[in-house]
């Protein structure tokens, strides 16, 4: 590897490889809260509802833990933390499978506003998101299901006092409950990254039609939103519209990778516990090497992907120039690891693992939807190679 190739894959020395004591304390407090509020009985109850979340728990996590404000600076009513803390939150939410509009409102929408918005827009939009009073989401993908911004077709036609949106967004997380929509679209006759921008509008605006989709992972609700001449405001400017969007998607990929690692750890713990309990042939199945070795490999798999997820979060937090590449790396690693861990966890549970009553499938389905959400591993691997200049 030439020196330049090497620096390309070597994050700066500033990156921390351990969490601080404060971060660890924050994690434990959060974990206690979630253990209490999001047992799998509750996950099962909420995933069967159309809203998919408990407004009372949302209020508590907003007021007691200030979670929606984590990445939002204090001047806009937030807690003023960064990417690392945001990822601690998503990791713990992923472990507990909390049903709440956090990814949509905080990870996607708040970051999009922070990345794209003007000072005035941040001041007017962010406080309500930070306090948890308002739910929001970011609509990127369309019927093609692609996450590459260049594929965006939704047209935003300039009019006197804003833009009119025409097109369809699909796979919009929590699109059915968000009050504020942030929509990625392009000005007429533009292609590629040119002419892309973000637009905001209320979900109740005229010309907006929302439909809840039946999702395979019922803990992550998806909606299709049709726009017919809906009136919207430009978020920031058209000139660098693609940059804030790409940045938001990269941040989201990192947050998702961490969320996936929380889920993977929950699955691994459950597989280990079960292997210590279940007796066959007069011994616990965890005493058979076939199972011991499988679990050792699962642990290795999870630890490696966790390192990538943590490292990407740290790199993003310190704005290391490598961070967008690491976002792809972390997302690809997490996707494959989460799904493998889920599949192996079911295997170790045997027949009971394939039943509805056993909890494993809740995480299995989250693993499946997360594999595809924000782009499949093959997409992120290709993007990684491009960002590394190979």
């Amino acid at each position, binding site marked *: 590897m030439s020196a330049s190739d090497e620096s390309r894959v070597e994050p700066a020395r500033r990156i921390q490889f*351990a969490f601080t004591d404060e971060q660890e304390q924050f994690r434990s407090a959060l974990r206690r809260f979630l253990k209490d509020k999001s047992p799998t009985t509750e996950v099962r109850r909420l995933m069967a509802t159309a809203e998919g979340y408990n407004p009372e728990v949302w209020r508590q996590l907003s007021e007691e833990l200030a979670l929606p404000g984590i990445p939002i600076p204090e001047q806009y009513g937030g807690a003023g933390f960064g990417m690392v803390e945001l990822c601690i939150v998503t990791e713990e939410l992923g472990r507990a499978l909390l049903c709440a509009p956090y990814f949509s409102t905080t990870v996607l929408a708040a970051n999009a506003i922070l990345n794209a918005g003007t000072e005035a827009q941040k001041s007017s939009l962010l406080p309500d998101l930070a306090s948890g009073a308002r739910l929001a989401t970011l609509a990127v993908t369309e019927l093609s299901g692609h996450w590459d911004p260049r594929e965006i077709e939704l047209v935003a036609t300039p009019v006197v006092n804003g833009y009119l949106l025409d097109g369809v967004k699909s796979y919009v997380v929590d699109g059915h409950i968000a009050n504020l929509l942030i929509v990625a679209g392009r000005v007429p006759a533009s292609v590629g990254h040119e002419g892309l921008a973000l637009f905001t509008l209320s979900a109740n605006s005229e010309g907006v039609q929302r439909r809840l989709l039946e999702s395979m992972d019922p803990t992550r609700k998806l909606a299709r939103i049709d726009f017919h001449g809906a009136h919207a405001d430009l978020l920031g400017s058209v000139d660098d519209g693609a940059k804030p969007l790409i940045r938001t998607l990269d941040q989201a990929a990192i947050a998702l990778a961490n969320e996936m690692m929380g889920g993977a750890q929950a699955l691994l713990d459950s597989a280990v516990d079960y292997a210590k309990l279940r007796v066959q042939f007069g011994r616990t199945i*965890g005493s058979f090497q076939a199972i*011991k070795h499988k679990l050792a490999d699962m*642990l290795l798999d999870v630890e490696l992907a966790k*390192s*990538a997820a943590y490292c990407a979060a740290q790199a993003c937090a310190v704005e290391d120039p490598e961070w967008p590449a690491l976002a792809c790396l972390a997302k690809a690693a997490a996707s494959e690891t989460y799904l493998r861990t889920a599949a192996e966890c079911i295997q170790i549970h045997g027949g009971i693992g394939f039943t509805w009553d056993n909890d494993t499938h809740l995480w299995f389905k989250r693993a499946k939807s997360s594999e595809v959400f924000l782009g499949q591993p093959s997409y992120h691997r290709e993007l990684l190679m491009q960002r590394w200049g*190979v």
Partner: protein
Amino acid sequence: MSRISDEQVRAEVRAWLAANWDPEMSLVTWRNKLADSGWGMPQWPEAWYGRGLPVGLARVVEEEFANVGAVSVAKSGVRLLAAATLLEHGSDLQKKKFLRRILTGEDTWCQFFSEPGSGSDLAGATTRADLVGDHWIINGQKVWTTSAHHADHGLLLARTDWDAPKHEGMSFFVIDVKQPGVDVQPLKQMNGHASFNQVFFTDAIVPAENLVAGVGDGWKVAMTTLAHERRGADGLNPPSKRGARLGRIHAEERSELETANQPYKWYPQRAGRVDLVFERAKETGANKDPYVRQEIAKLMIMAKSAEWTARRARAAQQHGRPQGPEGSLGKLAASNVARSCAHVHTLITGAEAMLAGPGSPRDGIIAEILVSVPATSIAGGTDEIQRNIISERVLGLPKEPRFDTGPFRNVRKN
């Protein structure tokens, strides 16, 4: 202990290097200076050639050495495993006798653990040590001993009590390899090199003062060596970048490495040379193939994640947190990386992967990568043994059933 900051250490070592580093010095003189000052092994205790610094700060020192291009203490081969073992279990006399010459590179070491009948099951060793007067007399056979043909000293695990249970009847010695009664015979490996040997001991003599720890403590001591060996395997760092380094000291170091690394010539290839992958992909045009790109990305994701996992383990240690699972996973990760690296090199190389030797890609290096890869998952404890360790010690799963209890004399052997 009051915490010393990065910056303090950096300033101190920088000043010391400015005053002492001189590439025209002889290698041994320089390394003796390192031993005396403690800057060669800063994480070692002050009483023994170190400065008692935490591991994290030792890396700061390493960086400063790298910045001025200063040569470090001798690190190749089994040297540092021997040093770590003696530092923990050796007598003061043994530390005095051996540690300094390890650091200066004057002595080369090897590890006499494996035997034809006991590899994974190291505690099944049947090489015997019998106390006669004030000497131990060694008889038996060791095998796969890397570097035995260069070594001055060996770490030897031998049985001293046949009636004790297997793990309790062993003792640990330092043995002089270049003495009568030690017969070293090279073994040719599947990659054509002969870096390991079989070694026959016939009434070879070890003075009583070379017994490490007590009689019967051999297993405990060997575990220290093995722990350091596995830890070493987590370093997937690319070979250090060395520009043209002029001066007498560098010339001497090059020639030392030439000899010391001669049995290890193919070892850098064991981890599969992840560092070569991008270069090779570009020079062959394979970087244009979407499938190859995917496989390269998979490999790099695995390799980088493994490296960061090792760093997390070190960082956790620096924060005074208990060792997490990251630490015991490195060796297994290294074999996965090595295998997957060979796979990617094969993809990139195509038909030429069937060739070997000077006419083949990268002057035979690629061929060597491809046929050296199995060593990684065997040497230093097989992948299966690592999985046993991880599942039992980290995940707390039940131990393997035992059929080797009671007096060792009665245990079934090969």
